[in-house]
Each structure stands twice: as structure tokens, then as C-alpha cells.
């Protein structure tokens, strides 16, 4: 927390900085708070209170002078910043230490025996594991809960107004998942108090009657189906009428049923609504039938349930709360159950939660020590479990169990959930606590959030305009009718059809005349009915169909299939397809998104010596070990440094060798990895698969294995490590899990040589503060330098330390640990304190560098996105150096860019740096504008500015008036890189852009920390990668690799946008032209709303006559081929500039519509003026003319004609003819035989031809002139595709192949 002057530093690698105006280089000299002591002294910000006060903590460490090399001053910033290497590794799972509770009283800790008598198991410490509720709490899949947990973190921070890295760093790469232990542990203890009688569910173990005494808990049968045979009709209709469109349909249809308003025949007017309802109902019914079927299968599965003294098979649906169930290996779990015992003597069970959260690694769950030995089929268990009421948080569970007069607290690690599968455990026995609908998986089954596309939002404005038109038309009609009625008021009695009296019954009776005012009202309502399709309700339905079609093609796109994870593209949101074509900003996570999140151990610094030979030597050393007659090899091979191997082989006699030995022992032991043996085809061989929740830890354990420290077995009490062929057993005496305050984890090992060692690994910032600096200062310095070098290479670094414990020290620790872990209140804080007592005065062993490899095709993808005019922002929780180096390797940053770095720790300095940066970037812009005429987006040669800003500065900027400045600055920059940002800040940055521009934003990420950003952005894309499924669950689209963003946006997005934009305009036109024709006719019928076109044709118009072609074109038309779009990413600009749908196009369409309706209406009208033509004949002519016209209009705009398009367009026209023939062949209709009569006349055909040519000619001319003399980029590219010389115009092809080609691995 230091050096708070802004650093405006041109990139050291910028070759042309000399030519630039002098740039201010700030240093710490001016900082009045300078005067820090040493490098490490100021870095411990463990104490949040200290961190509050930035003055205190601001200890700039390097008194850098302006002449200092830029890179070093940059380094000084970051290192003194107190920034923390993200140690995601440590935030893992099981805190097996806690609360052995009363049992330990009965059976005092047997530490002595273990220290004396070799391998005696010290059972007490570990077995009754109290996994804290906390850790997983925030991993909730429900979006809300994630938000909540994030905000709770945030509020915690704001509470003490500190800017601890805690909130920013630890949430990064794996973050929310592991959460902040402290907060949640607190929650646990709170919840124990809070579990009062009213709220809690009381489950009496194996006592159904008593359990269900108070409440009848529902059975375990589930119903995902929505309807039953009886409820289907009402419920389905009810749900369908939630849509506004249907209500509109309904209102119109109901209006039409009133006798005074019946414009159309009653049956006819319901037709469109009935059609849509029927189609949807059939679809829903079919889906529901399938759900019924799967429900039935699910409900009839068998579980083995304790009845009396024996386990009997019982159908799942009959399982009740309180029953004891036994699950065998690989069986699915029928309901949420609390574990009582498992086949593992320590009570461990492994479950696979892939159905629940999509994570394929195994999770460990624990049975309570107290229940472990109870065999319910031998002795009856009595006890009760009090747990919270069912909720959807799959990572939280608060309960306690009273058994044998003891009260045990239960957490999420003691429960196994429905939807999981038991693995690697022979059996478990548990008590059902939540069943059926109340299981967490069922409570969680809800859909993705719905967003609304930008195009649709814009369209709604035009819909309002169209409603305005509709009202205007109706007003004109009713006004004219009013005038007419008033004018002829005296004659109304006499005029044949307007007699006020009805003479037919012999008595004087009013006939259909309701007085002037009511007549006008009725006229208005009737005109609404007649002109109803002016509001293109069918458009909404067509759009949905089109989106389904587009999604179908996106999902099937072979180029968006990820081979490594065998995953297709997923469309989770169906209503924002077209937004993909208008993205202007991409916000990307780094880890797992740009990089693979497959950690690979690259190099190590041990005892001050840098071993990075593994990088250069390709030698693959397969280390193997024999267990139970099987040759086991690690599943993943790691390149090993030959020097280091040599050193290891020479043994630990030398000082050097000893440290190397300790280092690798630490890597192999200090983790929560579970080794699993995977059988291979070779019966004598097997693979060791290290399962764990942190990829970093996995990488370290694989690395240790490669160097001959092979973790073979882990139970909660001991681990077995094969060290260079010598199998050794270490007792795990204690384990302090990772937490986000300490940012480190430690394990206390009882070694075979009877020493007790503490191994600690963690982030450099917090580690250096607990390392004994009196010893080996030069080694610390060297390690520090190595760490810096590693992170500059983009590696993730961890520091490893150790100390030996004396027996007394251990006893001390143990007793306080016991005390802390049994504490009911503030347990987490106490445990942290206990950990603090032992994690100090460490000897540094070294540091590791883990590479997070860049995904395939990322630089190319970023490059083409940038060429497409998309601004790519990278938001990462990583260190600045790591972020910058990844920025370079991903081509996000180039050497020509000028970097602006903002690291500030106070609002004022933030403001100053922002202002300076804005000034400078303005200057740079003008310079580049003078020398180059090039535009920013193509950006070759111009001075580009990259902004690098860290989370600490963002704290002061976001949600303050500085946002405006940051946005201004960002708009000058080609690249923005935010490091050390917290999840909520990511969302804040997205909101910063989203709220200030009309441009579309896209966020892409893979982890839980990206959830808030994904939900905030207009389009959220989840990468289905290593970090579970939370990002995917909250995303709109999900895919396997970052590079798929290119085909997604540039190809599908472009297509979808173009298709949808055209389709909306076309639908407006199509309906309006029809309405206008009706309207013109109404003007000739005394404003009485007669239609010449038959009712049936009016209703079929938007269902049969014209619906299919627009949907087909909306799904299939392509303005450009995929190849062209990828070759010229700039073509994406068409969407960003809203070329396919804007108000100019809308008004052009309106004018065109007017003209076409005039042509259709008046050509026949004048041609038949004064002739004996009847209403039905001319009505048929108008029907056919308008249908042929709108279909040909579409045909004129179709860009690619494949057979489906042909079939749809010509088929629709033919279908219309057939429909008209059929309608006119019904003798009971007025227009019987009209069409057959009229097609025999020449003037019919002449009219038809004249209408079509006259109506389309203006559009055709304008279209041609535009295309020829004002060609859009898309138009030129189309011409290029057809006429261009392919070899001359493919500059980007080679580059693109990297994105297109599927990885072959």
C-alpha cells in the first residue's frame, strides 16, 4: 500500500517513445509519507485496522528516483503495493481439525504416543471433522446467493473502510467458491443460536412417526412435470396468457364477439389465437409428457432403506424424512441425507456432484466421529437432527445432531445431496433430512435469467410508433364516420341500412343504432379489430421461432465445438441472439478464459537457487511406483529439471539436498489433494489421479510426483508419500486450511523420524511477513527476485516455508487448537489466531512458479476482435506483472502501445492520475492524428494507449464522480487491463461502460467470480472450463474456448443481427401494407369497416400466407459467407453501427409501405372503376396481389437462395392461391366462386402484373442506387465474394486458421 503517485509510464518496450512528448514519470520522492523501512516490513497488512489508514501502511519501499529504470519503478509499485499473489491453491476444502469435541475429553489426545511410538494413529485430531460451513457458502449456484455473498464481503470491507487485498485478491481465480471462511463460520455459530424451535426442522433418526408428528413431511417423489391430465388445459392456458401478445389477441377476439363489434365471423376471429395457443400447448404437452416419463423412472428407482433391523429395497418415492438409507458405491443419492457412517474408518465419503454443479472432481464428505461406529442394522440409533428449513443453497447447511446426549454441529460437509453419486466409497449410511421437492437440487432447478435484446428494446419503440399509427388510422375512420353520421343525421331514419326503427317485427324497434356517441365508439373499436395486425404480434412469435432456429445452428456449429471438453456451444438465453452482432466491448476474465486454467508446474526457486531447466528440457521423466502389485504413474506428466533430479538423487545429506527434500515434501504434503487410482487397459498398471478442488495444488502435487515425491494415499489421519522409492508415512497432526485473510495454509506433520514439522505455503505478501527475516536474508532476497521474475513471465507464484516444532510447542498449539475448534462462538477467528501462533518464524524453503497456459488461438482471437472494432478489456484478479505479461503474450498489449498505469491508494491521487492520464492520452491522440490519418480501430502505426489500473484504485473510482473521468480515459485507450479486481468490481466496470454508452457489452468468464460481471453485461458468455459451472449457469451463452468468441460474434452474431434486423422491418412492412389496404377500402365504404378481403384471408394472412418465408429467411439467410466475415473482421462494424435496423430504415420502410399499399389498392380500383366488379372478386385480387407482393419483396431482399428459401417463398405463394381457391369454393360464403370467375378475365392478370411492378419498382431503384453508389462494406464484400479475386484478397487467412482449426490433441 504505497507509492501513491500516479505512474504514467510509457511501456519500456515502446520503441518510439523518444519521439513522443516528454512524459511525466512520477516517483515516490514527492510522497511525504515516504520513509518506509524495508521491503517486507510494510507489507503485512493482515491487520485490517492497519490497512484502514493508508498513511500508516503506505510504506513506499524503494526510493526510486526519476532516473531509475522504468521497469524497476514499476516493480516497486507493485511489490510495495502489498499486492498479493493469488494463492488459489490454499483455499481448499477440509478443515479437518476442528471440534473433535467431547470425545477428545474422554480420550485425551494421544500425541505423546504418536511421537514416541512411531505410527500410532492419533485419531482424535482429525477424524471428527468439522468442515466449516463457510467455505462453500458463497459458492451457491443461485445467482442471488452469489451476489449476496459477494456483497456481504464487500460490506464487510466497507465496514472497516479498508482496502485489504482480501476482498480483491482472494476472490479472483477460484474465489467465491472457497469464500471467506471467517464470515461464514460466524454465520455458522450464529445459525446455531438461530436454529430455534419454530424455524427448525426436527428429524428423529429412524423414527418416522415422531418425525412426522408435527408436520407431515412430503414424500420423496418428485414432480418436474408441470401439469397433470386435468390441470393441463387451465394451467397451460394461464401460463400462456402471461404474454402480453396473447392478451392483445384475446382482447381483440373478445371484442369481436360482441354483436355490435363483430367485424369478422366469430370463429374466424379466434383462429389466430387458437392456432398459437394450440401450437404452444402441443409443444408444452409433449415436453411435459417427457418430464412425466423421466419422473416416473426417477421415482421408481430403488434405494435400500432400513426397515426394522434390515435394509430393504424401497422405491425412491416412498422414502421419508427420518429414514436411514444405505448407499453403495456408484449409486445415486435419492435425497438429501446427513451422513452417519461410511465404509471408511475415518468417516470420509467421496461424492461426485457433476449433476448438481457440473464439477467432475470428487468432493469429500464426512460422517461425524460420534456416529461413525454405529451400525443401525445392529443397534438402534436414537437421536434427533435439528436442521434449517429447506433452502436452495447447495453449499450451506446448518444443523446439529443430538445423539447419546451429545450435541454435535453439522455443516455442509456432513450432508450428501440428491443428484450426487457416491464414488470411491463402498457404502455410506445416512438419515434423510430433505426429500422430494425439498431437496436442494430440486429447489435449485430454475431457469436462466432472461435478458432482452437491444434490437427488441429498440423495436418496442417502433411498436409504440405503430400503435400510434393504428390509433391514428382508427381515429381517422371514427372521425369520418362521425362526420358522416352527423351530416346524414336527418336521413338515418330513412336510409335503407341505417333505419333507426326495425319494422320487421311489426312493431317499432330500434335497429342497431345506439346514438351518435356510441356509434363512434363502436366504430373506433371495430377499426381496432379490423386493423389489429398493424401491431405485428406474430412478429414476437416469429422472432422466437427464428431465435430457436438460429440457436440450433449455433449449437451445431462444428467450429464452436470444443474437443478437449467435448462440449458444444450452448445457448442458454434464447432472446438475445442478435445482440451478438452489435458488441462493442468485451470484458474478459483472464484465468480460465484467456488461459486454460490447467496449471503446469514450470520452475522453482529453492533455497535461493532458480531451477527452471524444466522449461528447456523436453525430457519426459515418468516416475512410477509399485503399489499392491500395480505400477502406478501420475496421470499428468511434468517436465522435470535434470539438475534438480540429480540433486535429489544425491540425497539429503548436503545442505542443498536437504532443502530440496523439504521443499518437495512440502509440495506433496501441504495440500488437500486426494490421490485416486484409475485403472488403465494395462492390468498391471494404473494411473494416479490427483483429485482436488484447486488446480494449483494439483499441479504442485504432480510436480512433486515427477521429482519422486509421490503422494500415494491420504486419509484424514495420515498421508503416505513415496519418496524416491522409499515409502513413508506421515501423520497429519493438524491442518490449517487456507483462508483469505492469511492467504496461506499449513499442515503439521508427524514425520517418521519423530520430528514435527510445520509446512506452510501461501502468497508471497503474507508469507514474507511470517518468515523469520533474521535468518538467511540473502536467500529471502534471492527468492523475492525469482518470484518477481516468475510473475513477469506470467507464472503464478507461491512461497513455501517450514519450521520445526518442539514437543512443548506442539502441545501448546494443540491445546489452544482444541479449545478454538470446540468454541461455539467466533470459532473462525479463534482458529485463525491459533494458526497465527504457529505460522510464524518460518524458514523460507523456496517458491514455485506455475504456468497457466494461454488457450489456443487467444492472441489471434483478440487480434481479430480488435480489428472488428471491439474493445477488449481484461479484468483479472492477478498481479499486475502477471496480467501485463499475459497481456503481451495474448497480443492484447503490443510493444507500440503507450502504457498508462494507475495505482493509487487515495481518492485525491486517483483524481490526479486520471487527470494527468487524460491530458497525456489526449496529447497522444492529437499527435497520432496529425501524423496518421488512420482510424483508431484499425490502428496500425498510430500511438495506441493501454490503460492498466488496479483494484485498489478502482475502489476510489467506482461509484464516485471519478467514474466519468475513468470512462473518458478509457475511451482514449485501445486496451484496458484491470488487475486485482474483485468480482463486484468487475461488475462495476461493466456497469461503468454500460451505463455511459449505448454500446453493447459482453462479459466472458469461467469462474464464480465472473458471475456478477456476466449478469451485468448485455451479453454474458460462460466458458465451461475447469472452474465448475457457475459462470455457465448464469451466462447467456456457454462455450468451451475463448477463441470461439470470434465465430460467435463475427459470424453468428453478424448473421443473427442482420437477419433479425431485416426480419423486424419486413414484418412491420408486411403487416402495415395489409392494414393500409384495408384502410383505403374503409374510406370508400362510408367508414363502416367493410373489408373486401375475406375474413379468412385476413386471418390467414399472417399465419399461412406470409409467415413461413420470413421465418425461413430469418433463420437461413446469410449476407456473407463465414470465410469472408472471418477474413474481414471489420465487417462486424455493420452491427455496431446498427446498419440493419435504425430509424432511417424504419421510416424508409414506412414510406415504401405507403407507396406499395397505394399501388396495390388503387390500380385495381381505377382499373375497375365504374365496372360491375363485385366486392369478392376485387377482394381476391387484392389478397393475391398483396401476398405475392410481400413475398416477392422478401424474395428481392434474399441474399442467398437455397432450396429451402425457394420452397418457402414460392410455396407460400402457391399455398395462398390454394387457400383462396378453397375459400371461394365454399358455397355458404359470400364470395363463392369469385376467384374462378375473375381469373378468366384479362384485366385481373393485367392488374396483378401492374401492381407488382409498380409497387416494387421504387424500392428496387433505391436499393440498386444505394448498393451501387453508396455501397456498404457488406455490399462490397458480397461483390468480392462473387466477383473478387480470392487469392489477392485474403491477407488474414493464415492467421484465422489458428482460430478455425480445431485443436488436435
Amino acid at each position: 500500500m504505497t507509492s501513491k503517485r500516479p505512474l504514467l509510464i510509457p511501456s519500456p518496450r515502446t520503441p518510439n517513445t523518444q519521439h513522443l512528448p516528454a512524459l511525466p514519470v512520477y516517483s515516490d520522492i514527492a510522497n511525504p509519507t515516504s520513509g518506509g523501512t524495508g521491503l517486507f516490513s510494510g507489507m503485512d497488512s493482515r491487520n485490517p485496522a492497519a490497512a484502514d489508514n493508508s498513511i500508516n501502511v503506505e510504506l513506499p519501499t524503494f526510493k526510486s528516483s526519476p532516473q531509475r529504470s522504468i521497469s524497476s519503478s514499476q516493480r516497486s509499485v507493485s511489490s510495495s503495493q502489498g499486492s498479493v499473489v493469488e494463492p488459489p491453491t490454499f483455499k481448499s476444502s477440509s478443515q479437518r481439525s476442528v471440534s473433535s469435541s467431547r470425545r477428545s475429553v474422554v480420550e485425551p489426545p494421544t500425541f505423546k504416543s504418536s511421537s514416541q511410538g512411531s505410527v500410532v494413529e492419533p485419531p482424535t485430531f482429525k477424524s471428527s471433522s468439522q468442515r466449516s460451513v463457510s467455505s462453500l457458502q458463497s459458492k451457491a449456484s443461485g445467482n442471488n446467493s452469489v451476489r449476496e455473498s459477494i456483497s456481504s464481503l464487500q460490506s464487510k470491507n466497507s465496514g472497516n473502510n479498508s482496502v485489504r487485498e482480501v476482498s480483491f485478491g482472494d476472490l479472483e481465480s477460484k474465489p467465491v467458491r472457497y469464500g471467506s471462511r471467517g464470515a461464514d463460520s460466524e454465520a455458522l455459530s450464529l445459525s446455531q443460536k438461530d436454529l430455534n424451535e419454530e424455524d427448525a426442522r426436527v428429524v428423529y433418526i429412524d423414527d418416522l412417526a415422531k418425525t412426522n408428528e408435527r408436520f407431515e413431511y412430503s414424500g420423496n417423489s418428485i414432480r418436474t412435470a408441470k401439469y397433470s391430465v386435468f390441470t393441463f388445459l387451465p394451467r397451460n392456458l394461464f401460463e400462456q396468457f402471461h404474454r402480453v401478445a396473447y392478451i392483445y389477441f384475446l382482447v381483440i377476439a373478445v371484442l369481436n364477439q360482441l354483436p355490435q363489434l363483430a367485424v369478422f365471423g366469430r370463429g374466424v376471429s379466434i383462429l389466430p389465437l387458437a392456432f398459437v395457443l394450440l401450437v404452444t400447448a402441443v409443444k408444452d404437452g409433449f415436453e411435459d409428457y417427457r418430464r412425466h416419463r423421466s419422473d416416473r423412472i426417477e421415482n421408481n428407482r430403488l434405494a435400500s432403506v432400513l426397515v426394522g433391523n434390515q435394509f430393504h429395497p424401497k422405491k425412491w418415492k416412498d422414502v421419508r424424512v427420518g429414514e436411514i438409507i444405505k448407499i453403495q458405491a456408484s449409486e445415486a443419492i435419492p435425497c438429501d441425507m446427513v451422513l452417519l457412517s461410511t465404509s471408511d474408518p475415518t468417516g470420509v465419503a467421496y461424492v461426485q456432484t457433476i449433476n448438481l454443479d457440473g464439477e467432475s472432481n470428487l468432493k469429500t464428505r464426512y460422517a461425524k466421529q460420534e456416529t461413525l461406529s454405529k451400525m443401525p442394522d445392529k443397534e438402534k440409533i436414537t437421536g434427533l437432527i435439528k436442521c434449517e428449513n429447506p433452502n436452495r443453497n447447495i453449499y450451506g447447511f446448518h444443523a446439529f445432531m443430538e445423539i447419546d446426549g451429545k450435541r454435535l454441529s453439522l455443516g455442509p460437509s456432513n450432508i450428501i445431496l440428491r443428484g450426487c453419486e457416491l464414488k470411491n466409497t463402498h457404502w455410506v449410511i445416512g438419515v434423510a433430512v430433505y426429500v422430494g421437492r425439498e431437496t436442494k437440487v430440486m429447489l435449485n432447478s430454475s431457469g436462466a435469467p432472461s435478458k432482452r435484446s437491444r434490437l427488441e428494446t429498440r423495436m418496442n419503440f417502433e411498436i409504440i410508433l405503430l400503435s400510434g399509427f393504428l390509433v391514428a388510422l382508427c381515429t381517422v375512420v371514427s372521425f369520418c364516420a362521425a362526420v358522416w353520421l352527423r351530416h346524414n343525421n336527418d336521413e338515418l331514419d330513412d336510409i335503407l341500412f341505417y333505419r333507426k326503427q326495425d319494422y320487421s317485427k311489426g312493431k317499432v324497434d330500434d335497429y342497431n343504432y345506439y346514438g351518435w356517441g356510441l356509434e363512434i365508439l363502436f366504430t373506433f373499436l371495430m377499426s381496432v379489430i379490423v386493423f389489429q395486425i398493424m401491431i405485428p404480434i406474430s412478429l414476437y412469435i416469429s422472432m422466437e421461432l427464428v431465435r430457436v432456429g438460429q440457436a440450433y445452428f449455433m449449437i451445431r456449429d462444428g467450429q464452436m465445438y470444443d474437443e478437449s471438453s467435448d462440449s458444444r456451444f450452448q445457448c442458454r438465453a434464447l432472446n438475445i441472439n442478435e445482440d451478438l452482432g452489435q458488441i462493442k466491448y468485451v470484458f474478459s476474465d483472464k484465468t480460465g478464459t484467456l488461459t486454460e486454467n490447467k496449471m503446469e508446474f514450470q520452475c522453482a526457486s529453492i533455497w535461493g537457487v532458480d531451477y527452471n531447466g524444466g522449461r528447456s528440457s523436453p525430457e519426459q521423466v515418468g516416475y512410477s511406483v509399485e503399489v499392491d502389485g500395480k505400477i502406478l504413474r501420475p496421470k499428468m506428466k511434468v517436465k522435470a529439471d535434470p539438475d534438480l533430479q540429480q540433486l535429489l538423487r544425491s540425497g539429503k545429506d548436503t545442505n542443498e539436498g536437504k532443502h530440496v527434500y523439504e521443499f518437495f515434501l512440502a509440495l506433496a504434503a501441504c495440500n488437500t489433494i486426494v490421490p485416486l487410482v484409475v485403472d488403465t487397459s494395462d492390468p498391471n498398471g494404473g494411473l494416479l489421479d490427483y483429485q482436488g478442488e484447486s488446480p494449483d495444488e494439483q499441479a504442485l502435487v504432480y510436480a512433486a510426483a515427477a521429482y519422486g515425491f509421490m503422494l500415494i494415499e491420504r486419509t484424514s489421519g495420515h498421508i503416505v508419500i513415496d519418496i524416491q522409492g522409499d515409502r513413508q508415512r506421515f501423520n497429519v497432526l493438524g491442518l490449517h486450511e487456507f483462508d483469505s485473510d492469511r492467504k496461506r495454509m499449513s499442515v503439521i506433520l508427524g514425520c517418521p523420524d519423530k520430528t514435527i514439522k510445520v509446512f506452510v505455503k501461501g502468497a508471497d505478501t503474507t508469507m514474507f511477513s511470517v518468515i523469520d527475516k533474521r535468518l538467511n536474508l540473502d536467500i529471502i532476497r534471492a527468492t523475492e527476485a525469482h518470484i518477481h521474475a516468475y510473475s513477469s513471465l506470467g507464472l503464478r507464484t507461491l512461497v513455501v516455508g517450514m519450521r520445526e516444532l518442539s514437543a512443548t510447542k506442539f502441545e501448546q498449539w494443540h491445546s489452544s487448537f482444541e479449545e478454538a475448534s470446540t468454541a461455539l462462538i467466533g470459532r473462525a477467528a479463534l482458529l485463525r489466531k491459533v494458526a497465527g501462533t504457529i505460522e510464524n518464524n518460518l524458514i523460507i524453503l523456496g517458491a514455485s512458479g506455475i504456468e497457466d497456459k494461454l488457450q489456443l488461438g487467444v492472441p489471434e482471437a483478440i487480434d481479430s476482435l480488435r480489428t472488428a472494432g471491439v474493445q477488449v478489456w481484461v479484468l483479472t484478479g492477478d498481479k499486475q506483472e502477471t496480467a501485463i505479461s499475459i497481456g503481451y503474450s495474448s497480443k492484447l498489449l503490443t510493444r507500440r502501445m503507450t502504457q498508462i498505469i494507475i495505482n493509487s491508494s487515495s481518492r485525491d491521487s486517483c483524481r490526479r492520475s486520471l487527470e494527468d492520464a487524460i491530458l497525456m492520452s489526449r496529447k497522444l491522440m492529437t499527435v497520432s492524428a496529425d501524423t496518421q490519418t488512420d482510424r483508431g480501430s484499425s490502428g496500425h502505426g498510430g500511438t495506441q494507449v493501454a490503460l492498466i489500473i488496479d483494484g485498489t484504485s478502482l475502489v476510489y473510482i467506482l461509484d464516485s464522480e471519478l467514474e466519468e473521468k475513468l470512462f473518458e480515459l478509457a475511451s482514449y485507450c485501445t486496451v484496458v487491463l484491470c488487475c486485482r479486481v474483485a468480482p463486484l468490481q468487475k461488475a462495476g466496470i461493466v456497469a461503468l461502460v454500460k451505463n455511459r454508452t449505448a454500446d453493447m457489452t459482453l462479459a466472458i468468464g469461467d469462474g464464480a467470480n465472473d458471475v456478477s460481471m456476466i449478469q451485468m453485461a448485455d451479453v454474458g458468455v460462460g466458458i465451461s472450463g475447469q472452474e465448475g459451472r457457475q459462470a455457465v449457469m448464469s451466462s447467456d451463452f456457454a462455450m468451451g474456448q475463448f477463441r470461439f468468441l470470434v465465430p460467435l460474434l463475427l459470424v453468428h452474431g453478424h448473421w443473427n443481427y442482420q437477419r433479425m434486423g431485416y426480419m423486424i422491418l419486413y414484418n412491420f412492412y408486411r403487416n402495415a401494407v395489409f392494414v393500409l389496404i384495408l384502410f383505403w377500402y374503409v374510406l370508400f365504404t362510408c367508414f363502416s369497416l367493410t373489408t373486401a378481403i375475406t375474413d379468412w384471408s385476413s386471418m390467414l394472412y399472417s399465419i399461412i400466407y406470409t409467415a413461413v418465408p420470413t421465418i425461413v429467411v430469418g433463420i437461413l439467410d446469410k449476407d456473407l459467407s463465414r470465410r469472408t466475415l472471418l477474413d474481414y473482421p471489420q465487417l462486424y462494424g455493420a452491427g455496431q453501427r446498427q446498419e440493419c435496423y435504425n430509424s432511417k430504415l424504419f421510416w424508409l420502410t414506412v414510406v415504401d409501405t405507403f407507396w406499395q399499399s397505394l399501388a396495390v389498392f388503387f390500380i385495381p380500383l381505377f382499373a375497375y372503376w365504374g365496372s360491375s366488379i363485385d366486392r369478392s372478386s376485387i377482394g381476391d385480387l387484392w389478397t393475391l396481389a398483396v401476398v405475392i407482393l410481400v413475398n416477392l419483396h422478401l424474395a428481392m431482399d434474399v441474399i442467398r437462395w437455397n432450396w429451402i428459401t425457394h420452397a418457402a417463398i414460392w410455396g407460400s405463394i402457391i399455398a395462398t392461391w390454394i387457400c383462396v381457391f378453397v375459400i371461394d369454393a365454399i358455397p355458404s360464403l359470400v364470395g363463392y366462386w369469385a376467384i374462378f370467375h375473375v381469373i378468366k378475365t384479362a384485366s385481373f392478370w393485367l392488374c396483378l402484373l401492374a401492381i407488382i411492378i409498380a409497387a416494387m419498382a421504387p424500392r428496387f431503384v433505391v436499393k440498386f442506387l444505394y448498393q451501387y453508389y453508396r455501397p456498404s462494406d457488406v455490399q462490397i464484400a458480397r461483390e468480392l465474394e462473387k466477383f473478387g479475386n480470392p487469392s489477392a484478397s485474403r491477407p488474414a487467412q493464415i492467421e484465422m486458421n489458428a482460430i478455425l482449426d480445431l485443436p488436435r490433441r
Partner: protein
Amino acid sequence: MDAKDGASDLTSSTKKKSRRPKYSQFTQQELPACKPILTPAWVILIFVAIGIVFLPIGFASLFASEHVVEIVNHYDRDCVPPNYVDNKLAYIQSSKTNKTCIRRVTIPKQMKSPVYIYYQLDHFYQNHRRYVKSRSDGQLRSKSNEKKTDTCAPERYTANGAIVPCGLVAWSLFNDTYKFSVNNKQLGVSKKDITWKSDPKKKFGSDVYPKNFQSGGLIGGAKLNSSIPLSEQEDLMVWMRTSTLPTFRKLYGKIEADLEADDIVTVTIENNYNTYIFGGNKKLVLSTASWIGGKNCLLGIAYLTVGGLCLFLAISFLLLYLFKPRPLGDTSYLSWNRSAPGGHIY
């Protein structure tokens, strides 16, 4: 036709359970397709073609229309005796007055048979919604539907039962009659086949006889002979094909003889129909027919206009193309190349 776009890297090496999308031209949106582009040549060709087709049609239809001989006689005013001029309604509504009216028309040109006799009504809203709905097509078709009069208000039934044919449309049947003579020689008026052939077959039942028609308090128009089935009442059929516009003609009959130029035709009109109440006009029309229909030059004019405009456009585009061409597919027109040296700013 870009059927091969990007397909090369998708081989059939899919594993058994792989979720890799199967390659097909359809799913990869690579169906063979034709991509028409509006090139100047095509556009000019299209316009020339339209011009070439439209102009002759225009001339032909104008010519045909010119050859139609049409005589229109506006008689409603002149057929009112001078003493009733101020009270036309009284005249027309009275059963006492003499409704016969003699009109003489001169034939300007020879009219070849058949000469069609039309009556034309103006300001008669035969397309008014209340009017067109007031009929029962079911009732017209068969005797069994006699009671189906619910759509016929206000002419549904009398005290004696349902009206057949019911409704305002039938009720207001035109009832002027015309007799023609040339040089004191009676001209036969054929009233056969003046309606569509389909109407007597299916639409108007042969077992449906008029009943209670025009027996109410107010007489709307012609009475029907209740011994003749509807399927033979061709005047009714013609009338019930309601007109498109408030000004319309309906076929009255045909004169199956040629009328020579300068013949004077004497028309004896029974002026019964009350158009005076709504200020409508009645006209008698004698007209020959051509392939295009009656006398109407608008279609010809429309064709000539469109054809002429298209030719004009074709020539303009040709000139534009010659003097200001743009090479198709020239990358220097792309927006990101336009500002670069060598790029075009239109």
C-alpha cells in the same frame, strides 16, 4: 456457392460418444445457394424487359378500351314529372303516379351484339358493413335453412314467418325496368346468363321460393314472383353480388342485336327505384365489351406509364453506368480502406 466454406477441418473421425455436431451442409449453413447481386447489367436488363413487355400491353389495352362503345344516360332527375321536381320522394313513394319515362339515346358508333345493358347507381353504399352483412347465404341455398335469418336484421321475418330471401340486400333489390326499341321496333332484351354460372348451381337453391318478401311495412324494392325458385331469379343473383364501391354498375340484360351508328334507341323506363331518398343517381348504360372488359383506359395508361418509366430508368442507369461506374468488389471502397491512400471517398 460457398458449399465448402470452412468445412475441411471437420472430418468424420468422431468418437463413439462424442458430442461433436455431425457435419452436414445444412447444420453448418452451407447449403448450396445462389447469390444474386444487382449488377448494373442486370438492372438495366430488367428495366428494359419490363418496358418491352409493358408498352405493347398498354397500347393494346388502350386500343381495346377505345373500341368499346359506351352510352350512359342519367335519367333519375329527368324522369320526374315537372310538378314533382320539388318533391321527388312523394313522387317515387306514391303508387298512384305514373312511373313510365321515355328516353331516347343516339348510337354514336356501331355496336356489335351483344350489347350489354347496365344500370349504374351512384352513392349507393352497397358495401356498407351493415348492408353487406344483412343477408343469409345459408337460407338462399336450401329450403331447410329457411329459418336461418339471424344475420338478416332488420329484414328477418314478418308476422307470417321468416322472410325468404331475408336481409337488406335482397330487400333493396333494384326494380327499374327498361324496354328498348329502335325505329319503333321492339328490341329483345335477354335476361338469361346475366349472372355467373356458379350462382344458380350452388348458391341459390332451386327449392327455395320467395316468401313473405316485401310484405312488411316498408317496401325496399322489387318484388319477387313467389312461384319461381331463387335459382332462376337472375336479377336477384346479380344484385346480391354486392358491389365494391358506392358507384357501381350491374348487368341488367343483353341486347342480342347489332345497333348501327346514328340509330336512335327509345328506352321505356319504369322509374320505380327510390334513389331520391339518399340523393343517389341512376344511370342506364349500354356498352359493348372487349377482351379488357368495358370502357376503361386507366389500365392502358398505367401500363404505358410504368413501361415508359422503366425504359427511362434503364437509359438513365446506362448513362450513369457509362459515366460514373464503380468496379464491383473493389476493396478500396471498404470503409476502413477509404481514408487510406488509394481509397475512394465515393
